[in-house]
């Protein structure tokens, strides 16, 4: 085990009633890099995320964060450690305002989150910081809108701002550009590039042009196991990878060249 890896998994396995969704995966994420996890539909990428953040309990395997075992930790403890995830389907709080979405992430360190007898206006002192974060993802003008009214791409941007509010050291992003049009994709790519400064990012991404633009290292997953690993050039040349993508995402592999 080495200090240069901020997040390490060894022999990570998840079985669902006999079906092995994740099969002895070894993963090493280097501090300060953007690391992609790719693979065809159903390869087990989201499940790996769920295991790393304890939304699912691994059947077997070890997870270490900064060389310290986090096997016994719960999801919320892992988040407080600085490893914050997003979700494949956009995860916002739809009936809170855009500002409140970010503010609820900023709120926890104040230590008043159990104070049910205090007026919520004590949270107003967080508004400036919340607006700053919204501004950084181009949402400052939407601060008072109820989140459910935002278009999809903007929701994903809001999600990113909310994640950034926690100042995470490691961000796990599950398909941040999924379901977006071209312009939105380009914007989110820029946002991620900006957000990744001084942090480590592990992201699942189907759009290989995004991967080629952003990522330092790529791990390819197929049927729950690691198929290949390396930088974009190495991985995209790998015949096994191309075969795994045949049929489902063949065009994308080709298109990304």
């Amino acid at each position: 085990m080495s200090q240069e890896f901020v997040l390490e998994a060894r022999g990570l396995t998840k079985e669902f009633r006999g079906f092995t969704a994740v099969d002895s995966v070894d993963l090493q994420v280097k501090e300060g890099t953007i690391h992609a996890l790719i693979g065809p539909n159903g390869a087990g990428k989201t499940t790996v995320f769920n295991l790393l953040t304890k939304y699912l309990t691994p059947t077997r395997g070890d997870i270490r964060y900064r060389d310290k075992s986090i096997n016994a930790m719960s999801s919320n403890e892992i988040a407080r450690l600085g490893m914050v995830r997003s979700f494949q389907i956009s995860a916002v709080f739809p009936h809170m305002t855009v500002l409140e979405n970010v503010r609820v992430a900023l709120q926890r360190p104040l230590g008043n989150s159990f104070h049910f007898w205090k007026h919520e206006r004590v949270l107003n002192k967080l508004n400036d910081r919340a607006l700053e974060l919204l501004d950084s993802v181009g949402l400052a003008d939407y601060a008072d809108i109820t989140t459910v009214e935002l278009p999809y791409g903007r929701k994903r941007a809001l999600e990113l701002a909310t994640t950034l509010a926690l100042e995470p050291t490691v961000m796990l992003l599950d398909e941040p550009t999924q379901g977006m049009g071209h312009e939105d994709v380009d914007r989110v790519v820029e946002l991620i590039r900006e957000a990744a400064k001084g942090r480590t990012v592990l992201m699942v991404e189907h759009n290989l042009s995004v991967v080629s633009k952003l990522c330092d290292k790529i791990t390819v997953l197929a049927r729950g196991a690691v198929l290949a690993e390396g930088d974009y050039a190495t991985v995209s040349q790998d015949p096994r990878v191309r075969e795994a993508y045949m049929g489902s995402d063949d065009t994308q592999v080709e298109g990304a060249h």
Partner: protein
Amino acid sequence: MATTDTKISAAQLAKQAENRRRNIFYLVLLALALVAPFVAYPVFLMKILCFALFACAFNLLLGYAGLLSFGHAAFLATGGYMTGFLLSTYSITPEIGIITGTLASTVLGTFFGILSIRRQGIYFAMITLALAQMVFFMYLQADFTGGEDGLQGVPRGNLFGIFDLSNNLTMYYFVLAVFIFGFLLIQRTVHSPFGQVLKAIRENEPRAISLGYNTDVYKLVAFVISAAIAGLAGSTKTVVFQLASLGDAHWHMSGEVILMTLVGGVGTLFGPVLGAGFVLTLEHQLSQSFLGDWVDVILGVIFVVCVLTFRAGIVGEVQKFMKKNFN
């Protein structure tokens, strides 16, 4: 950012205007509540206030934490029995009896909550129901509850040793004060830093967890507050009617509070109050008419109609209507 600032203040102005309107609304209601006992039968009004408080407590859990408890009767009954037993047995003042009854429900709520809070959806409802049934059978068997007869003739006593509660008008204003206290506590809880987290949990629990919140603990706190206020309602009700009975512990009661909350409007502050008033008035009117035997059926039909056609309840639908037409 200049545009943002002006926008924020515009939104804040709108919010202030809304708050002002709401305050006026509450002041008018308060004035009505103050004169009401001169127009209507005070005991019936007190009944409405007690059940309104009970429904508000339930709504805190369902409307603001997204948890459907099917065992809230246990908290109403526990407050009622504890207060009834203490006031009948010892010479203590009613407020001490009510506070102790409320504490008893709080303790029971903590116990229920710890056992159930990790479960989701229907499993949560089932566990709370099962626990409440256990409490029901316990009260059926126990000595201090008076079994099937319940505790009758509980003395109302003198509030703080000074105000004679056997006077219905005095009793009424005391119940009104208790209700306002409970209502404001809920209102504050909803609009507190805690309330924000609770809202986030209701909206998207996995996301709230990923922001570092130990959501089970927040839900537990909401559950305990709800149980405490339900207990307060039960304790107060026992003093009003000088009676604590098994009916309060029966699962019917847990169902009735769901009905009141749904009809009035889940997740609106005032909905449960209106719902309680509506259901109790209807029950009262029907039981005195030739339809007396059909009360349960008619309430059932209303329940179905409500769930099928106006899910937001009376207050929720009015709010929707206002938003659509006056914005």
